[in-house]
């Protein structure tokens, strides 16, 4: 298939010099972009032009560019990680856009994720939630032999599905309440389904929910937007498990 060149597109980007500075949108023209270009490469091309013109390039988060590190973010035309489903922004390509289109790029808008510069946000809040209980600290011994720990395949699969969370923040960014429930649910679920996670289950659910609330994330109203935006398709059924784990822990108090 011959490569299609987008002769001209308009990119409307949020520019903000520092966390405290007042931000604004600026629109740039980008010419001759191949539809085979990835979305982030398109911003690289734009940044090269900005640097050549002596301007400040657009700051944005990125790292692995293969959808596994959770570093890229960006809210593109009203969609977290762009209009494609089950991909991160780095896996989004310009073939999703058309000639002459205006592409609006915004940072994650979550109170608990303050903007550092332009499109970069500080996602330390997720690290703090994780540090509050998203780990196993009891001694579980060395690597066990295969099939020593009895566990149903379905449970192992569900734990793995939850563990697929890369902590990108798309759930909180897309949720109308900026709720981090899908993230916390995934981090609680990946342990709740496994025997190693049982020992600290009660402590974990309470501590992680308390930290999430403390950091200023909103509450879940079950709109389901998070699971649609999630690049790893993490199900909101995990949120129900988090609720269950939390209520069980609270009832035991």
């Amino acid at each position, binding site marked *: 298939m011959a490569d299609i060149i987008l002769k001209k597109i308009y990119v409307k980007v949020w520019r903000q010099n520092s966390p405290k500075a007042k931000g604004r949108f600026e629109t740039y023209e980008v010419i001759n972009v191949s539809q085979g270009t990835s979305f982030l490469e398109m911003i690289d091309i734009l940044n090269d032009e900005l640097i050549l013109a002596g301007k400040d390039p657009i700051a944005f988060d990125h790292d692995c560019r293969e959808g596994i590190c959770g570093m890229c973010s960006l809210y593109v035309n009203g969609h977290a990680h762009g209009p494609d489903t089950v991909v991160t922004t780095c896996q989004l390509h310009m073939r999703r856009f058309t000639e002459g289109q205006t592409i609006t790029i915004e940072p994650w808008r979550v109170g608990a994720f303050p903007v550092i510069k332009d499109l970069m946000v500080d996602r330390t809040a997720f690290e703090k939630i994780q540090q509050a209980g998203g780990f196993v600290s009891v001694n579980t011994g060395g690597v066990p032999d295969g099939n020593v720990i009895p566990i149903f395949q379905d449970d192992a699969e569900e734990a793995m599905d939850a563990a697929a969370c890369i902590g990108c923040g798309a759930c909180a960014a897309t949720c*109308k309440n900026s709720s981090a429930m899908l993230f916390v649910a995934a981090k609680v679920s990946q342990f709740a389904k496994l025997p190693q996670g049982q020992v600290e289950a009660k402590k974990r659910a309470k501590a992680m929910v308390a930290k999430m609330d403390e950091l200023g994330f*909103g509450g879940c109203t079950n709109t389901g937007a998070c699971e649609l935006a999630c690049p790893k398709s993490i199900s909101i*059924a995990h949120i129900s498990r988090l609720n269950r784990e939390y209520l069980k822990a609270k009832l035991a108090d």
Partner: protein
Amino acid sequence: MSNFLNASIGRKVFMSLTGLFLISFLLIHLTLNLFLIFDDSGNLFNQAAHFMATNPIIKIMEPILALGFIIHIIWSGWITLENMKARPIGYASGDQLLKWWEPAKNMFILGGMIAIFLVLHILQFWVKMKITGDPLLNEPLNMPLEAGVEMHNAYALVAGLFKNSVLYDIVYIIGGIFVGLHITHGFWSAFQTIGFNNNNWMKRLKCLANLIGIVFAIGFSAIPLYFLIKF
């Protein structure tokens, strides 16, 4: 306990449990109201209204029901305000993922409309039946009464409103539809919040929620619609 009441999940448990309680009330309410359209003499409805007004269990449940409504309404306002604070700056490109009309996104607005409707509804019927009285309530009944039994003609009051006012017919039809829409999200959501959900039950609960929502929407709107068309 105090941190449970303030925790995001704790607050929602109140919404969930009061919501399920209100749905169970609406089911009884709808069942009795449907007597309005199955007996034009009004006897069936009057007997039901008389039973509800005199039954001791219902009398005990009445203040509990009021409390359920109050908690559900106040908590929703509190939760919504807290949730709005979590996003100080909104998106210029809006949210293109969920459609604007989806009940899940509009629970507070739908709930607010229902609350306004509820005030009107209480003023039109409950206040007249229980406090101020109304000449229509004293209209003669179509049936003989046992000695010593006093019965209001509640049918005359309710049917009178629906027969005479096209505006209120429309208001009540819209009210019924809003309640139905609210429940299509609220019902399964309540189970999700108390932790009674998983991938298998998600489909069943959502299906049941849509079913209950549709039954309520059609059921409640059918009553004013019946009077609008027939009379």
